[in-house]
């Protein structure tokens, strides 16, 4: 019922919108509408007449026909090693292996080429290569961009994996588009329900809508700025959809009717209104909160129980270790001990530090009370009940201690068990567990300075040590590094090291850990030990113990020494066992960074005058652009959705069979596929097939290819096979006199164009040739790092450092330098085609970068491993691995001569041969045989 109403409303709006458009549109816009009525890419697909030329395939007939008009013809077929390298890089982005080359070159039966193409189409690496192409067009990044922080998108990889799987399974492209625009609406799934693998896939797909830059998670300006930041996320996504699916520059119509295209400003906001329910500016969800939990039945339960088991193991391990410490550590001279076995703190603890006049803080801590701020004994433990509010306060021992041991080597230490960092299981963990020594003065009334040494125990980072805290004289004197995690015993020890020299050391589980901080006697007045109350941090402790060294007793000295030795060994094995448990942990499954409507009832969407959200204009209803002749369309909002249904309606519209808009989508898509086979699209402006876009080379061919694609159920693999089987693709790349004279730029394709490999293919092929390529196929990204010099690299000591480039972290501000030098983009909106530059920075990175040097060593080691010491064999194999071909005799000679020269150049080194081979291998990475596809 609802659906019918909104359908009516939309249709009505459409009529009004159409009238309104005619009433107010400028003369230029009217001209654009007229031009659009006949513009080639805005029409439904037509199957063109197939030219009569004789040729290997139907595709070739179109090419041959246009070539004939220009008095040209296709070049002869390239040799087999060239063909397999071409096919391997186009389909998988990797070089063919030696086995693959052998299999193809030695296959003398008919159909060898087709079988080879089929093998690469079936390779799992196919999906990795073609996913990367789509991810660039879709604006994929692992970070939010926008602000300086360029914050992480920790779950974006699930969308990347969804895209890889979709390509490997050859999902029909129209379905792929619908899933990405409206997977949530297609799934019928509601948060909280259990999911199926299909549903999970649909939810992952919606991350497409989150690919734009989005700073709304970090907005800190005034309310107008916050709205601007949100609109940017929405507008970025519109721009991505425009260039990747429609081949149109929709963004130009944000402020006024498009100057070159038939898109009016009203069209822009009508389009925006389809997305708006998911990007509702008034009911905004920050990107870090757009997370949904979707699990297969039982998945969460089995993970929880496994995780619980690991928790139990960890707890047991800690308990054993702590028990061992308690058993074996020789206690010092006990100055104070509280196991909190009684019912009251009175007498031993106070909210006034010894020597002070007034309580530490307002309101003071309530002893034996759960009323915050309170301190109370419960279950034989001390609860620090901190109730928030501002200002510091404390409880302290009533007893005062001498914190300056009398003789060099003597010490005094305070310690306690940290039981929990919250009072109730549901509560928030305390961000700090802070305590004091030498506590004597809250309000600076004391004549004695120093003391009040705060240990700001930090579970997540370093523990800051402050002196004379709190107050204006407070200053930091250093840091300890151990993390304050429950289940361990923490404390500090002061040791006299000289005349007026003391050191403060951190004591964890009874033993000194990390670096010491130096102190003077004046820093250590007599005073109590206490816990800090601040900032809503409640926690539970036990076994407060103040003790001092007992070096007067030789027996004690001896057992203490033995303990320290055993402790080191014991702790090592404890830590190893802990690490082993941690390694077994897996993240909670089923978290998906998705996109869905904030509300099933669509909000009002306004046209924004001059594109400015501060000047909203008339309300705009969802409608399709007039130049697609939408009066012949029916706008369907499906019943029974928990969302507005708008995105699904748009997704169904754009993919509707035989429509002008699906014709445009098919043309944009096959053009992108063509571009990644031949280096340039049939339309050289893949992001613009509109009135202002480039004219297609071979227009009839583009029309035919697009029709074939749609007829073939929008499947990419059969289309690629058609292209790769053609004589056009299999031509040689060598120049011909006629070709050079009549079509210098090879726009008509009289030869296969020589192409430099893209950045990822170069890196991946270097990893493959050197034999270190790892077989990561999915999962969280491999992090990139910024070296102190500012170079962006992958830390090779980390696991998965040698995975394919698609699996590297795609942080907008952190494109690996090696890839960036070879034109890998930093994603702003998206990237539908790349520059192909030639510059000295590329030469420098091939000659001097760590990555090139290391791969050269790996490559040399591989040659030796596989060929032994035989120079000729190694040279042959090296050429085969980098170019797919055996070297020609002249190349062999040049190589042999180089190796001889290079051994001489390294004659003073014992491993001259190794150096020479590494240099040889590195040189081959700098060879154009490697860098280019011919």
């Amino acid at each position, binding site marked *: 019922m609802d659906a019918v109403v909104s359908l009516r409303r939309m249709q009505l709006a459409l009529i009004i919108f159409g009238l309104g458009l005619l009433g107010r549109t400028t003369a230029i816009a009217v001209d654009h509408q007229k031009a659009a009525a006949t513009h080639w890419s805005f029409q439904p697909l037509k199957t063109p007449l197939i030219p009569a030329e004789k040729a290997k395939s139907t595709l070739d007939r179109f090419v041959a026909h246009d070539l004939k008009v220009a008095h040209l013809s296709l070049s002869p077929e390239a040799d087999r090693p060239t063909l397999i390298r071409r096919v391997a890089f186009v389909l998988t982005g990797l070089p063919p292996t030696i086995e693959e080359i052998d299999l193809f070159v030695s296959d003398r039966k008919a159909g060898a080429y087709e079988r080879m193409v089929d093998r690469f189409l079936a390779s799992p690496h196919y999906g990795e290569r073609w996913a990367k192409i789509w991810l660039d067009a879709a604006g994929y990044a692992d970070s939010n*961009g*926008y*602000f*300086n922080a360029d914050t992480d998108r920790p779950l974006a990889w699930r969308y990347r994996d969804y895209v890889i799987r979709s390509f490997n399974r050859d999902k029909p492209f129209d379905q792929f588009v619908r899933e990405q625009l409206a997977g949530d609406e297609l799934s019928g799934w509601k948060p909280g329900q259990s999911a199926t693998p299909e549903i999970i896939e649909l939810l992952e797909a919606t991350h497409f809508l989150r690919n734009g830059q989005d700073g709304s998670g970090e907005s800190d300006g*005034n*309310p107008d*700025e916050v709205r601007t930041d949100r609109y*940017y996320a929405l507008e970025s996504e519109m*721009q991505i959809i425009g*260039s990747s699916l429609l081949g*149109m*520059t929709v963004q*130009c119509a944000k402020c006024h009717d498009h*100057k*070159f295209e038939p898109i009016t400003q009203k069209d822009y906001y009508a389009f925006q209104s389809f997305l708006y329910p998911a990007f509702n500016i008034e009911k905004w969800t920050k990107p870090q909160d757009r997370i949904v939990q979707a699990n297969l039945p039982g998945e969460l339960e089995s993970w929880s129980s496994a995780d619980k088991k690991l928790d139990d193991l960890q707890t047991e391990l800690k308990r054993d270790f702590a028990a061992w410490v308690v058993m074996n550590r020789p206690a010092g001279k006990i100055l104070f001990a509280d196991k909190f076995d009684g019912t009251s703190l009175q007498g031993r603890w106070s909210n006034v530090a010894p020597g002070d006049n007034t309580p530490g803080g307002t309101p003071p801590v309530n002893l034996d009370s759960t009323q915050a701020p309170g301190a109370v004994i419960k279950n034989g433990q001390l609860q620090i009940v901190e109730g928030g509010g501002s200002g510091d306060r404390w409880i302290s021992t009533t007893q005062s201690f001498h914190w300056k041991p009398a003789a060099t080597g003597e010490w005094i230490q305070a310690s306690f068990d940290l039981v929990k960092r919250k009072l109730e299981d549901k509560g928030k963990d305390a961000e700090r567990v802070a305590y004091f020594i030498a506590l004597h003065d809250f309000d600076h009334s004391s004549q004695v300075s120093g003391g009040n040494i705060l240990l700001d125990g930090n579970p997540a980072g370093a523990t800051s040590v402050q002196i004379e805290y709190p107050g204006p004289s407070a200053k930091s004197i250093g840091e300890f590094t151990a993390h304050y995690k429950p289940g361990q015993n923490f404390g500090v020890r002061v040791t006299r090291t000289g005349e007026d020299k003391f050191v403060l050391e951190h004591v964890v589980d009874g033993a000194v850990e990390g670096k010491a901080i130096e102190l003077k006697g004046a820093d250590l007045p007599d005073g109590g030990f206490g816990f800090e109350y601040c900032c809503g941090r409640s926690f539970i402790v036990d076994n407060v113990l103040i003790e001092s060294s007992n070096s007067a007793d030789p027996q004690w000295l001896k057992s203490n020494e033995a303990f320290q030795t055993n402790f080191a060994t014991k702790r090592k094995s404890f830590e190893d066992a802990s690490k082993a448990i941690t390694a077994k942990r897996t993240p909670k499954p089923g978290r998906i960074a998705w996109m869905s409507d904030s509300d099933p009832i669509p909000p009002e969407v306004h046209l924004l005058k001059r594109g400015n959200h501060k000047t909203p204009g008339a309300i705009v209803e969802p409608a399709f652009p007039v130049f697609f002749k939408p009066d012949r369309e029916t706008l369907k909002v499906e019943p029974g959705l928990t969302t507005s249904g708008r995105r699904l309606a748009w997704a169904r519209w754009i993919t509707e069979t035989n429509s002008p808009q699906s014709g445009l989508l098919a043309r944009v898509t096959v053009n992108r596929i063509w571009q990644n086979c031949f280096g*340039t699209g049939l339309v050289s*402006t893949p992001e*613009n097939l*509109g009135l*202002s*876009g480039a004219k297609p080379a071979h227009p009839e061919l583009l029309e035919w290819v697009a029709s074939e694609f749609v007829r073939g159920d929008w499947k990419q693999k059969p289309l690629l096979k058609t292209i790769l089987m053609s004589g056009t693709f299999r031509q040689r*790349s*060598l120049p011909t006199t006629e070709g*050079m004279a009549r079509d*210098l*730029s090879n726009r008509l394709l009289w030869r296969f164009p*020589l192409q430099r490999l893209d950045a990822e293919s170069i890196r991946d092929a270097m990893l493959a040739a050197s034999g270190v390529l790892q077989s990561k196929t999915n999962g969280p990204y491999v992090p990139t790092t910024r070296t102190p010099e*500012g170079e962006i690299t992958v830390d090779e000591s980390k696991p998965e450092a040698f995975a394919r480039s698609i699996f590297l972290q795609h942080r*907008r*501000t952190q494109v690996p330098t090696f890839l*960036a030098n070879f034109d890998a983009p*930093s994603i*702003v*909106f998206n990237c539908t085609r790349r*520059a*192909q*530059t*030639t*510059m*000295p*920075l590329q*030469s*420098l990175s091939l*000659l*001097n970068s760590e990555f090139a*040097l290391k791969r050269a060593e790996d490559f040399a080691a591989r040659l030796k491993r596989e060929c032994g010491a035989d120079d000729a064999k190694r040279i042959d194999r090296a050429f085969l691995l980098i170019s797919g071909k055996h070297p020609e005799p002249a*190349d062999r000679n040049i*190589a042999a001569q*180089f190796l001889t020269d290079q051994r001489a*150049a*390294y004659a003073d080194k014992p491993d001259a041969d190794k*150096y020479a081979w590494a240099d040889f291998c590195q*040189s*081959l990475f*700098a*060879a*154009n*045989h490697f*860098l*280019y596809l011919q």
Partner: protein
Amino acid sequence: MNPFQMTRRAFLSRSAGSLGGIALAHLLGPSLVSATEKPRGKAKAIISLFQHGGPSQMDLFDQKPELNKWAGKPYPGGNLEVHFDKQAGNVLEAPYKFGRHGQCGMELSELLPHTGSIADDITLIRSMNTESVDHESALRIIHTGRFLAGLPTMGSWVLYGLGSMNENLPAYVVLSDPGGLPVDGERNWSSGFLPAVYQGTPFRSGDSPVFNLKTPGKIPARARANQLEFIKHINQRHAALFPENTELTARISNFETAARMQTAVPEALDLSSESAATKKLYGLDNPVTEEYGRRCLVARRLVERGVRFVQLFLNGQPWDTHDKNAERLKGLCAKTDQPSAALVRDLKSRGLLDSTVVLWTGEFGRLPISQGKDGRDHNRHAFSLWVAGGGFKSGYVHGATDDFGYKSVSDVVNVHDFHATLLHTLGLDHRALTFPHEGRPSSLTDPDVTDAKIVPALLA
């Protein structure tokens, strides 16, 4: 013809070298110079002394007696656009005295005595404005003309339009603060959608100023020479198959250029041949000015060697005086005033100022009211900048703000107008300097959207 292909061929065919850029002007040809706005083009290079954070115009360049009259009282001029809207306070006094400098009588703060000494050589614009009160977006507007991250910077556009004059040095050099990156990091010199060849190259201190510039220590000179010869040899055999392909020959010669750069870059950074007087001029004898002075002097050496665009940055965003505005300005001026002025004087005495533009600016200005106790918040409605040489007027003050310095009111120059004018001084028509992107010709000023216009009054 597809302009992208043309462009690509253009730099491929010419890329006999240069880390930075390759001249394209000859290929884009007359279209760069439109009939209506004929550029004069005295300037060949730009040095941008970028002042991250938004220097306070009313404390440094734009005297406002009203501020001190109203100090501590509510701002009488109505609503202000405030970034941190919850910390807005009353009118904040501008404590530093202003004095007249040079024959032109330019009024400047007592914190800028050295800038005062070059008053007759600079144009001071008091009526700038921009479109964002947020650092990052304002930085992008002044560097790239657009709000969003990742677009080509002014330096990249200049390089794309003019190419390189010394192929052994990067044509767009960034001298960033040894103390750390500025806010927005490398994006401040990104080439965006322009090819990476046009990006700024940061020169680091130390013996490898450019990534991968140095031959690894384990490779002796002879071995490297052999290797370069071997690479050349096999690549020539490959290139022989494609004699028409200039990209392949360019790639071969780039290895030689790379080798030449290994000596050219350290030479440009070596100050040992500079006289004691020059070093003193830049404040190299004073620990306060030494570091900034060193980079200003390096900037001059780079421009002398044909570098097109040099940009100095500061660590973080030091001019972002949200608290202790007056106190912080004192320290920042002590560090930057003398070296900045020295650069202008030195260029002038060497006859390089006519062909070099020196630009001193931040991304926006500050508010007349306080933020918290003693800070000033961001202001996009008014800021001041100065520019010298390269065809800009000398001893000239342009435009004015209202009585409180909140808003530029007369002869207002927005960032896009300024970009158009700056390109003009280099002989580049901002309307014609375009690159196809996102389906349309994109430019630094995007005049169809911003309506950017050259400001003739700024030009000599």
